[in-house]
């Protein structure tokens, strides 16, 4: 049981939670995630650790309401207990000074991108970050990103903030302008796919952090499997970061939809049985 000690709404659908988890805070590094379960009948879901505070013994999670489980978690308040939190899981990001890094984040993918950007900057890289969302209200963590990046470019689909256009347009602008040594991308699978196609075109090595479905998060079940370079890999133990150009994103997107029907149905039932006051 882990107590929530801080809660903040980044937008209507995106919530930041700070939880007590001293052991995880001590051992986590950029790229690590946790598995969280809410309630005795809850499901286990992976969430990337967006930050940690050693003195307070806390970790920060950023959650987007997309289904039953994420909504249950987002509905918890300060002082409430999260039933189960386990981690830190996965391999940490490989941090090295390479020169110029082009980081791209979409949706809640921006949250896990933050510690990676932080670490890459600290290692002495020049970091240019492209943040993308549908509209202005969905751009999160902009200030923190600015703090740790040399430059931040904002892209919105509807042009309500920053530049109008897709994340890849923002990235291409940078690539055409200067030499990029490494790209890092975190976000929805489809976004990472197109980022990867773009950087592939320019021969820029690229790391993607994959957010597959998971159950145990310790390599026991294979729910998280993806094809990388023609081989099956388990995201929870072999990843979550992989060479983006080797990842079969189409397969990953299909697998992410495994339970789409039953999930949508469950979510509607949940909303109907828990009417908002």
């Amino acid at each position, binding site marked *: 049981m882990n107590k929530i000690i801080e809660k903040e709404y980044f937008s209507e659908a995106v919530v930041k939670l700070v939880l007590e988890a001293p*052991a995880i805070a001590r051992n986590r590094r950029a790229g690590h995630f946790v598995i969280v379960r809410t*309630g005795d009948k809850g499901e286990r879901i992976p969430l990337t650790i967006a930050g940690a505070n050693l003195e307070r013994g806390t970790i920060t999670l950023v959650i987007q309401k997309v289904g039953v489980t994420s909504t249950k978690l987002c509905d918890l308040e300060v002082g409430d207990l999260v039933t189960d939190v386990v981690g830190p899981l996965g391999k940490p990001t490989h941090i090295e000074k390479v020169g110029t890094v082009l980081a791209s984040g979409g949706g809640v993918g921006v949250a896990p991108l933050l510690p990676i950007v932080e670490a890459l900057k600290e290692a002495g890289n020049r970091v240019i970050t492209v943040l993308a969302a549908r509209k202005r209200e969905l751009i999160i963590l902009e200030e923190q990103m600015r703090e740790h990046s040399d430059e931040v470019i904002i892209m919105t689909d509807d042009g309500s903030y920053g530049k109008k256009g897709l994340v890849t347009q923002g990235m291409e602008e940078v690539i055409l302008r200067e030499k990029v040594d490494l790209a890092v991308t975190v976000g929805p699978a489809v976004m990472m796919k197109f980022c990867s196609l773009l950087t592939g075109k320019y021969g820029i090595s690229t790391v993607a952090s994959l957010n597959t479905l998971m159950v145990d998060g310790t390599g026991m079940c294979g729910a998280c499997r993806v094809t990388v370079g023609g081989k099956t890999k388990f995201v929870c133990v072999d990843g979550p970061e992989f060479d983006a150009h080797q990842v079969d994103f189409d397969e990953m997107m299909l697998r992410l939809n495994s339970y789409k029907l039953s999930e949508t149905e469950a979510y509607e039932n949940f909303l109907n049985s828990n009417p908002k006051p």
Partner: protein
Amino acid sequence: MDGVSEYLKQERDQEWRLALRGNMKNKERTQLERVSMREQAADKRNKNFTEVNLGLLKEQAMLEAQRCLDCVNPTCITGCPVGINIPKFIKKIEAGEFLESAKVLKETNTLPAVCGRVCPQEVQCEEACFYTQKLKKPPVAIGFLERFSADYEQNSGEMSVPDIHDKNGIKVASIGSGPAGLAFAADMVKLGYDVTVFEALHEIGGVLKYGIPEFRLPNRIVDLEIDVLKKMGVKFEKNFIVGATASVEDLKAEGFKAFMVGSGAGLPNFMNIPGENYIGIYSSNEYLTRVNLMNAADPAYDTPVISGNKVAVIGGGNTAMDAVRTSKRLGAERSIIIYRRSIQEMPARVEEIKHAQEEDIEFMNLHNPLEYFADENGRVCKMKVQKMKLGEPDSSGRRRPIPIEGSEFIIEVDTVVVSVGVSPNPLIPQSMKELEVSSWGTIKVDPESMHSSVEGVFAGGDIVRGGATVILAMGDGRKAAEAMNRYLTQ
């Protein structure tokens, strides 16, 4: 005469045993027929998750206990990996002292209610029984009787808590809460150690909880046994992955003096054939975890599972039987076992195969999958299988399956469960670089002491054996406890 046989003889010579032996002639005893287990009817049980075996009635158990000859040389014990004093516990049943009988079991077995249900007695104690060996008759139903006594105790509400030595305050840890870790913890706490069991999942019990289904081993039974361990003073830390949440070094700094790694054979194997990552294709671990640990079949729980009308389970072990019988219970019209050898070579327990057959499970023996096909949404809809024939025996002594060219055909499926074995969980070896592992990834230990290549770190169960049984894991845990005690007191 060695210590053990000396002890067994002394026990056998006790008056109550002599008296029982005098009650009935051996000839009468051997005339009795072996009991049969009461079971739920097959066409009913394949639609529910309650236990298939219903246990013996008191009268049945006492009658079966009479069959046991209380042999001078009880060969049955040599077949038991933890050396239960079998005639003694059986004779306590014959005497009607059921709680005493359960105590005998607990002298050497921490989880008798579990073992009475899932141990392969037919290749262990019952195989070594005088009836099997010399009389060529069905053996004494040792497994059923073990379950009877253990259940009697659980239901009596008077679970005995074994005696504990004076506490010595020395902290030791078990990494993993499967049978190896639990058996280890029980022995160490009895010796007075301060024992903590670390478990990665949110439930205690390892495969007993996430793998073996309710209809064979109800979680309630496992929990009752774990409660006894808690009463004995064992501490449990769930959601704690040693090597991630904290390292062995961190735990040493917190005062832990020695470790027993019982982290199991977690990693599921796939066949690496085309289409294996389509939606609806699971490892047996995932399928069973969703249903057993996460309760996916109950709509009140959030975890989903896809379990369709035409389910194929690939493999021939206990896990495959558990998965295929689960699929039937989730409503499948066709549940098929696809196994590349014949039914004789199947590693599953005889009882599981028999139960599966009764439950309307189809067996496609001598068939092997080659490829899966999916619909436009990436959901598996068909598979290609090939017929096999048996050739010469291979290194395992079983006849090698050989593909029959041109025999391929297609079957329609909407769910597939791949149950072709597991590999050792790599978390601990990865986090302890100095730990020696075999080329399979199992931890190397001294077979006598279960001591690994790292000072003060012992290991046992599936992480050492690479996929074995509950009772062998428990035996390892006990051996490790004994050796660790010696190591710490030297």
